[in-house]
């Protein structure tokens, strides 16, 4: 290593040293501990006992709830992510038309993001109340005779959660909007000269130009969706019911750890999730080369 390189390394490390230090103190020990626990029976209060791979084997071969919680999480991520991206882009496109009162609309769409989770969950529990909720009343006005039971019944609980998530997707909207406003105006001018209609412009200019922003939101959305916890926790009062319909992966993990005291089992779940997220993220990055367009590179 040359002198210059070494100097650069030292300066670089110096700058990241606060985080590095935090990483060693707050992450390394808990990570190692939880990897070790995942190979043990660990009831939190009594010392862990080593059992090899049994937690992992049990999870995969004989725990129906593990499978159910994966299905729930995939259901939630599989619908809320594409819908969120679609809705976010459409709203950002509309906002990008330079309508009057832009600041007002931006605020309206962003405001749900700053509502704290607890308030958010309580609010939607009330709006989607099967008997007295305003949504079911409006649905009733449309002539529907059996409005859904939302969080009270198994089939409607997850759609309810997805609606909640979509309502609070303002952060993604703002980021899409930022991406769109970065697109050089000249591109559209050229397209206008070629006589392209608005749909062609969106398809051929806007979408490719914001594809890197879509990637960012997709990856962040993936991580958040796979760790979805607080809203189903508050709404189902920590149970994941009815009929395990709100039993998301992390909620089940939490129940195993703190309700049933199977910390070793929960740690095994955590590391399976970790590997899954890493693999999916890598996959997304790999395939993104086919659809993400980097202007400058």
């Amino acid at each position, binding site marked *: 290593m040359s002198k210059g390189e070494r100097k650069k390394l030292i300066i670089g490390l110096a700058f990241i*040293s606060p985080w590095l230090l935090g990483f060693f103190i707050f992450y390394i020990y808990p990570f190692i501990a939880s990897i070790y626990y995942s190979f043990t*029976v660990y009831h939190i209060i009594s010392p862990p006992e080593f059992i090899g791979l049994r937690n992992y084997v049990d999870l995969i071969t004989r725990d129906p709830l593990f499978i159910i919680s994966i299905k729930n999480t995939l259901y939630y991520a599989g619908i809320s992510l594409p819908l969120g991206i679609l809705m976010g882009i459409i709203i950002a496109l509309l906002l990008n038309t330079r309508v009057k009162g832009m600041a007002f609309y931006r605020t309206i769409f962003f405001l749900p993001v700053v509502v704290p989770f607890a308030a958010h969950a309580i609010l939607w529990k009330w709006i989607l109340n099967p008997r007295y909720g305003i949504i079911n009343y409006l649905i009733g006005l449309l002539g529907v005779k059996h409005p859904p039971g939302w969080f009270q019944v198994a089939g409607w609980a997850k759609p309810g959660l997805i609606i909640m998530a979509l309502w609070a997707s303002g952060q993604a909207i703002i980021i899409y909007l930022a991406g769109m406003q970065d697109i050089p105006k000249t591109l559209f001018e050229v397209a206008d000269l070629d006589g392209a209609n608005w749909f062609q412009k969106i398809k051929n200019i806007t979408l490719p130009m914001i594809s890197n922003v879509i990637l960012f939101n997709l990856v962040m959305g993936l991580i958040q969706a796979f760790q979805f916890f607080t809203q189903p926790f508050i709404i189902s009062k920590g149970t994941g019911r009815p009929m395990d319909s709100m039993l998301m992966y992390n909620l089940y993990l939490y129940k195993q750890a703190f309700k049933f005291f199977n910390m070793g089992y929960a740690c095994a779940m955590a590391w399976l999730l970790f590997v899954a997220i890493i693999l999916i993220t890598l996959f997304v990055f790999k395939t993104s080369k086919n659809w993400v367009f980097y202007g400058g590179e």
Partner: protein
Amino acid sequence: MKILKIFLIMILVFSLVPFLVLARGDKADKAGKEEKAAEEKAPEVITLRIIWENWGADFTKYLDGEWTEKYEKDHPNIKLEWLFPASWQEKEIAELAGGDMTFDVFYMRPSFLPAIVERGGLIPLNDYFAKSGVKTSDFVDATMVTCMVGDQIYAIPGGADFIGWFVNKDMLEAVGYDPDNPEINSIEDIEVINRRLAKWDDDGNLVQLGYMPIDFYQLINWGYMFGGEWYDPETQKVTGNDPANVKALEWLVEIVDYYGYEELLKLRGEYAEWSGASPDHPFILGFTAFDSNGWWNYEILQNYAPDLDYGVINFPTLTGDPSEKANWVVMGWSVGIPKGAPHPDEAWEFLKYSWYDFTAEFGALTINSPSVKKSFPRFEQLVNEQFGADHRIAKLMPMFDEMGIHATKSMPTTPAGEFFDTELDRAMEAAMSHQMTAKEALDTFTERVQVQIDRAVGK
């Protein structure tokens, strides 16, 4: 470069501090304990710290308000400090795991206690019981059982949740029953009145019903009623698929089928659980004619349904034969001392004071039922004084005590802890939604809980 050097040195120093602190942790621990001990030698004020279930401010105000005042007045050198976390289980577990115990008193539910005892989280109270002359036979059996693992006592029974059936008198009268003595004593009576009460609107939405049997307390109760058992502590075997329990679940499923499961769920209300009194409880809103609940329910009825004309009857039994009252199941809660508690002796004094010596006073003040049998008369007298003998709930108190006198069954307490309750809820859901038959659901339940128990006891 000077600035960079200073910066690097700062980071280095900064980085060493936490390690030094971590290394000093144990020493500081000892020093801290000695300090604490020194403090205690002086006749200074001791603070007992208590973790309690969050019953909601309307109830907890009695605990950290009047009761604390009374206790501190009688014990000038002791202060009480209450914590009402939303998830007391998580809080207690974390405190035990941390090892630096700062709490003296733990609140517990039956399913929680054996699970942490199995893992060494509580101080045995046998010596304290013996020293103070408190006998296990002084308490309602069904609640005492939930405080013990084998011969060891780990908690004092706190409140006994004696359950009665609140009835909506107007609804009973409308379908031809005598509101003051409706004679609903057996499962046959329940079936008959359910059919009379059930009502659907023009679109087929259920709008009125009789008995709503969808929480696990109901299944445990009816399992016992049909002659079943849930757990055998001797062999540590779950007996959830006992044929009697299966029969009980089949019967509950029949009731649910009559109404339609989803229809029932839609009526349940967001905050209404078995003992959950809330303004959107179907009983308060007039959807159900019955609510199996304890006497604490009066307050919410008074506040949110002042016009509801209610009475209380005994929980029906299988055939209505009085001998079956022994199969009533009592829920409740207990209070123990965690391992490592800084003031175990003072904590015991507090336990004995609140749930033995003055348990009638505690019950009346905090709207609970006492577990000490000989305190019942005094308790009823206090309730009468407190509310006036004309108060509706004061008149109904004997109905609840009836359960304390007859009931012998308690909530199953297993080393699986809350896993038991959770799985039983799941079994009920599976059976009531017809994903499984009652038998299949309880078989699955038994198998899964057994695995968890074997794991907990290290088999």
